[in-house]
């Protein structure tokens, strides 16, 4: 038991440091450390290895418990085209994620349409056009600096008229504190809903795994203006761990649905809580 006590104090200090280092955040790290301390005691884990296993299991349980029954999978339309809107701050990986997802659904035999509704950034439309060509899917574009809402409208019309199974809407990156840009996003969402009552069936917040505590405010404000339904956590192939999604899960009940693991078309995987938790400790 004396041995366990030693694993206990240093072990839990190291654990807290590791969690903080993974961008879990101080409050969440302390909360987890307290819960895990209890769990390790309950399970009577005596070695570091046993304690680690208990901790990983418990954290996966906590992640699941922080949910409110949201779909872990993408929400698909009962009939007609499924519309998925991608939002997030500049450079997070929205356009690339659409490129990956389009290929994924095309492989499943779905008829996929892309909407290049970033009409603002240099080379944005061209970037998505390259992906469309690579994936062999169709794309709706608009004039440079044109109204992004018009591209959204045109794309939805085409999706309905030509029986597409799925429509991915790419939007321009924007920082959550830019009120007028957030309003623009809300307007684009309203157009989707007006044209297809249940649309968008999914609003995915694309979040860069290197982001720190600011990600929580990102999630809050994007959820406020577009009712985000899930997260895609990108760049997990790097050294960042994306721990902030635990706080986002805890406070906003948003599930991570997919993770980005690189820049190529196949570098997208469904989120797995155990893999993720395990990654926090690597």
């Amino acid at each position, binding site marked *: 038991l004396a041995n366990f006590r030693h694993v206990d104090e240093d072990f839990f200090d190291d654990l807290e440091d590791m969690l903080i280092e993974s961008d879990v*955040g101080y409050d969440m790290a302390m909360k987890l450390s307290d819960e895990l301390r209890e769990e390790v005691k309950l399970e009577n884990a005596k070695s570091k290895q046993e304690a680690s296993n208990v901790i990983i299991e418990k954290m996966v349980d906590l992640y699941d418990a922080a949910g409110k029954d949201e779909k872990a999978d993408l929400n698909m339309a009962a009939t007609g085209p499924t519309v998925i809107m991608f939002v997030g701050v500049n450079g997070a990986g929205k356009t690339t994620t659409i490129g990956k997802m389009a290929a994924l659904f095309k492989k499943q035999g779905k008829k996929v349409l892309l909407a290049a509704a970033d009409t603002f950034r240099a*080379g944005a439309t061209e970037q998505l056009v390259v992906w469309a060509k690579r994936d062999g899917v169709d794309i709706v574009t608009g004039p440079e600096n044109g109204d992004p809402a018009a591209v959204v409208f045109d794309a939805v019309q085409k999706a309905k008229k030509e029986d597409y199974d799925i429509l991915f809407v790419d939007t321009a990156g924007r920082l959550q504190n*830019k009120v007028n840009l957030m309003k623009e996003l809300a307007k684009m969402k309203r157009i989707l809903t007006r044209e297809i009552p249940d649309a968008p069936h999914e609003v995915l917040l694309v979040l860069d795994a290197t982001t*720190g505590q600011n990600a929580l*405010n990102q999630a809050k404000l994007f959820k406020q203006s577009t009712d985000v339904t899930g997260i895609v956590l990108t760049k997990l192939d790097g050294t960042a761990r994306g721990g902030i999604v635990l706080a986002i899960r805890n406070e906003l009940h948003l599930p991570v649905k997919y993770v980005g693991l690189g820049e190529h078309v196949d570098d997208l995987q469904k989120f797995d809580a155990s893999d993720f938790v395990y990654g926090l400790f690597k």
Partner: protein
Amino acid sequence: GLTERLQKAMEKLRRKPKVTEADLRETMREIRLALLEADVNFAVVKDFVKKVREQAAGAEVLKGLNPAQQIVKIVNVQLTELMGEEAVPLNKAAHIPTVIMMVGLQGAGKTTTAGKLALRLKNENHARPLFIAADVYRPAAITQLQQVAAQIDVPVFEKGTDEDPVEIVRQGMEVAKQNHNDYVIIDTAGRLQIDEQLMDELANIKELVHPDEILLVIDAMTGQNAVNTAQGFDDKLDITGVVLTKLDGDTRGGAAMSIRAVTGKPIKFVGEGEKMEDLDVFHPDRMASRILG
């Protein structure tokens, strides 16, 4: 932010006849929390708080001479010093062209910042810069740079995406020589600091052209990982400066402190928007108060 946190912690201290070790510990804890909240790396926070504590203990704090104000002042002074100097200029070559190389993780803002720097050089130095499009990987990266360049009327040397980036840079430098461009700005592809092959590519470009400036472009909202990124790029390339982007957001920007602490390299510029005009020189005092909140 820190000031409010410390005021609260200090309220209790003020009513006491003198500040005890426990009070000091509590104050240091508040400082630690404020910095972690601001995304400063936890190891950097530990070192920083240790230094502050030494100063606070050494000062008259323990004798109860308005401890709150003293400690806040110590923190502010320490942090502003750590942040480095204001408006450190770009290095300039003895003979034209001055070569600037943009490096960093994917999506940090390299291509956009390259444009901003070129515009600044044109406006302030009447420069005639040339871009070299060395990102052959990202879809339409060259198109993006060309559109940025068109906005500010700057030429781009590109060789499409089938050529090796080192070779593109070599040929671009020839063109710069012929056209007597006084500045060359090399836009490189985003990459992970753990990608050995791609980091070697950057080292090869460096070896070929000996840049006067290697700027690490970092997103201001980066969390704890900032130290890994900064260390990785600095160890491999011996960077000469840092540009912190997207400071027009509401992030506290603690990554700035982490990067300074770990590399000692100057933060030269900050990006404050998506337009070509949205670049400012670095102000350490503003950054310090932003981090402290």
